[in-house]
C-alpha cells in the first residue's frame, strides 16, 4: 500500500480520528452555548486534510479556510491551543483574536486561515514565490472549496503560480455545496480539476474520502513541485457531514445523497482497510480511539480552564 510504513498509516488514522472527535466535541460545546460566534465543522472531510498534510514535510506550508480546524490538526497543531482559540481564550493560537476561522501556527508552516473565500489562493502562490526566490525545496498546499473556484482569485492566483512554475499544490475540497448553493447551479462542468487545463497545469480528480488516494495524489504533486515543475490542481470529491455553519441544518441536501455519502465515511473506510490488511487489530483501533478521545478531553479541559485575554489586549498586535 504505497509503501507506507505501519507507523505512518497508524499516524494517519490517528489524525483522522483526532479531527473527527475534535469537531464533534466543538459541536457539543457549541450546543452548550460555550462557543462564541460561529463554527464551520470539518466532519466528513478528514481524509483530505490528513491525506494532503501526511504527504508534506514539517517545513512545508499550508494555507487554510474558514473550515480550517482539520487542516490545522493534520499539519500538527496542538489541539489544546486550537480549542482554546475557538473558545476565545488567551492561550489560543491567536490569543483569542482570530477564533475558529483564523487559526494559524507559523511554527509548523500553517500560514493561517482566511475567511474570505478564495483569498488564500494568491497568498499560497506568494509563499510559493518566496520559496522559489529563497531557493529552498519546500512546497505549499493551498486548501479551498468548490465555492472558491468561482472567485477571481482562483484564476489570478493559479495562473500566476503556473506561469512562474511555483511549488504550490492547489487542493480543491469539493463538498458539492457553497453554503447552500449546489455546484451544478454555479458551474457547467462537473470536475473543477478540468479548469487546470486553462492554466497549462495538471488537474487531478481524486476520491476525497479515500485518504490514501489523496496522499498519493499529493505526493506526486509535491514531487513535481519540488523538482521545479510547477503547481498541480487536485480536486478532492468529498462531503461535509454537517451543515455549512452552526445555523445550518442543511435541508437543501436530499436525504438519499446524505445517506450515500455517510456510507462513504472516510474514517470508517480507512479503518476497514487497515483491519482488512492486518495493519491494525480491532483492539488496537479501539485503543487509538480511546487515546484520542482522552487527548480531546484534555484539550477541552485546558481551553475551559484558560483565562480570557484582558480586554485591553484588543489594542495590541495591530502593528509590528
Amino acid at each position, binding site marked *: 500500500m504505497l509503501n507506507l510504513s505501519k507507523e505512518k498509516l497508524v499516524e494517519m488514522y490517528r489524525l483522522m480520528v483526532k479531527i473527527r472527535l475534535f469537531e464533534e466535541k466543538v459541536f457539543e460545546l457549541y450546543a452548550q452555548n460555550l462557543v462564541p460566534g460561529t463554527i464551520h465543522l470539518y466532519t466528513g472531510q478528514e481524509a483530505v486534510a490528513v491525506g494532503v498534510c501526511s504527504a508534506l514535510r514539517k517545513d512545508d506550508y499550508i494555507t487554510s479556510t474558514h473550515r480550517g480546524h482539520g487542516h490545522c490538526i493534520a499539519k500538527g497543531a496542538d489541539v489544546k491551543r486550537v480549542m482554546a482559540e475557538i473558545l476565545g481564550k488567551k492561550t489560543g493560537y491567536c490569543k483569542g483574536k482570530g477564533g475558529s476561522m483564523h487559526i494559524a501556527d507559523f511554527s509548523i508552516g500553517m500560514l493561517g486561515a482566511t475567511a474570505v473565500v478564495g*483569498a488564500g489562493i494568491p497568498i499560497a502562490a506568494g509563499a510559493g514565490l518566496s520559496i522559489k*526566490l529563497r531557493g529552498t525545496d519546500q512546497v505549499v498546499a493551498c486548501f479551498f472549496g468548490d465555492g472558491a473556484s468561482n472567485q477571481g482569485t482562483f484564476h489570478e492566483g493559479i495562473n500566476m503560480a503556473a506561469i512562474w512554475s511555483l511549488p504550490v499544490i492547489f487542493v480543491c475540497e469539493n463538498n458539492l455545496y457553497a453554503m447552500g448553493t449546489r455546484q451544478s447551479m454555479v458551474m457547467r462542468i462537473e470536475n473543477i480539476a478540468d479548469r487546470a487545463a486553462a492554466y497549462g497545469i495538471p488537474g487531478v480528480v481524486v476520491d476525497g474520502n479515500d485518504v490514501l488516494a489523496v496522499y498519493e495524489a499529493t505526493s506526486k504533486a509535491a514531487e513535481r513541485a519540488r523538482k521545479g515543475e510547477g503547481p498541480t490542481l487536485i480536486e478532492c470529491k468529498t462531503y461535509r457531514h454537517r451543515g455549512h455553519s452552526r445555523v445550518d441544518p442543511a435541508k437543501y441536501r436530499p436525504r438519499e445523497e446524505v445517506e450515500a455519502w455517510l456510507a462513504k465515511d472516510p474514517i470508517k473506510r480507512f479503518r476497514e482497510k487497515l483491519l482488512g490488511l492486518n495493519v491494525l487489530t480491532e483492539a488496537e483501533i479501539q485503543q487509538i480511539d480511546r487515546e484520542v478521545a482522552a487527548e480531546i478531553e484534555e484539550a477541552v479541559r485546558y481551553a475551559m480552564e484558560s483565562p480570557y485575554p484582558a480586554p485591553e489586549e484588543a489594542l495590541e498586535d495591530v502593528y509590528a
Partner: protein
Amino acid sequence: MRRITYREALREALREEMRRDPTVFLLGEDIGRYWGGAFKVTEGLAEEFGDERVRDTPISESAIIGVAVGAAITGMRPVAEIMFGDLTALAMDQIANQAAKLRYMFGGQVKVPLVIRTPFGGGVNIAAHHSQCLEAWFMHVPGLYVAVPSTPYDAKGLLKSAIRGNNPVIFCEHKLLYPFEGEVPEEDYTIPFGVADVKREGEDVTVVATLYMVHKALKAAETLAKEGISVEVVDPRTLTPLDKKTIVNSVKKTGRLVVVSEDCKTAGVTAEIAAIVAEEAIDYLDAPIRRVAEPDTPIPFSPPLEQYVIPDEKAIIRAVKEIA
C-alpha cells in the same frame, strides 16, 4: 547638494535597498526590462537585479498583492507596484482584509513587511479611472501605514523606511511629482514614519497639506507673504501614523488652520486632520478651520472640468484669507 527628481529618488531607494537586502524584490505590471514601469520608476532595475527580483506580472492586481502578502509572511520583503492608485480597488480584499489584518487575526505571530507603491492624483487629463487620490481609504484600515511623500528627499527616505519596516505600507506617490527636482544627499538616510516636516515656517496661519498640494501651499504662502500674511506649511509625510503633535503645536502657535488635500472632502484626509485639531486644540483656534479639498465628484476628463475640481493655489489663498 545634488538635485535629482522624485522618480530618481524612488529608484535610488529601490536600488540601494535591493543591494542591501537580498529578500527585497519588486513585482508589478510592466515594471521590468521591457517597459521600466508606467512612470519609469523601476527603469534599469531589471538589468541590474534580473527578472526574478524585478518581476513583471499578469494584469491581476488582486494576485499581485496576494502574492506579495504570501511572500511577506514567509521571509521576503516585496515591493509591489499598482500602476495607478485607482486600481488598488481591484486588490482591496488583499490589502484591507489580508495584508492589514493577518498579524492581528493571528495574534501577532507574523509580520507583513510589504510595500505597495502606487501613483495617485490628477492634473494629466486621464479621467476618472486614473486620477483619484484615495489615501483616506487606507487611513481607515488599521494595520496599514500610509506614506505621502511630497519631495524627492522625503520620497527616498520614506521608501527606505517602508522597505526596512515590518508593516504593510501604502506608499502614495503623485504623478505630477515624478519629474519634480529637489536636493537629495548621496549618503544613506531614512526618514521615520510619523514625523511631519514643517516645509515653511510662519506665524499667522497653519496650512497642512500633502503630496502635490504641499507645493501649491508653498506657492500660496509665498504670495500671501507679500501681502503680509505669514503661513506655516506642515507636511505630515505619513498619514498613518500621523504626527498629530507637530500639527497641533503649529496650530497652537498660529491659532488658525487650513487643511489642503487632493482627495474629495467627505470623510477625507482633511476631515480627519480637522477633527483631530478640533478635538485636541480647539481652545487655541481663533477662527474656524477651513478645508480645501475636491468636491465630491469623480475626476472629470476635459481640462477645464478637471482644473475646476482639483484645488489650486487660489483656493488655498482664498481659504487662508477667510480666516487670517
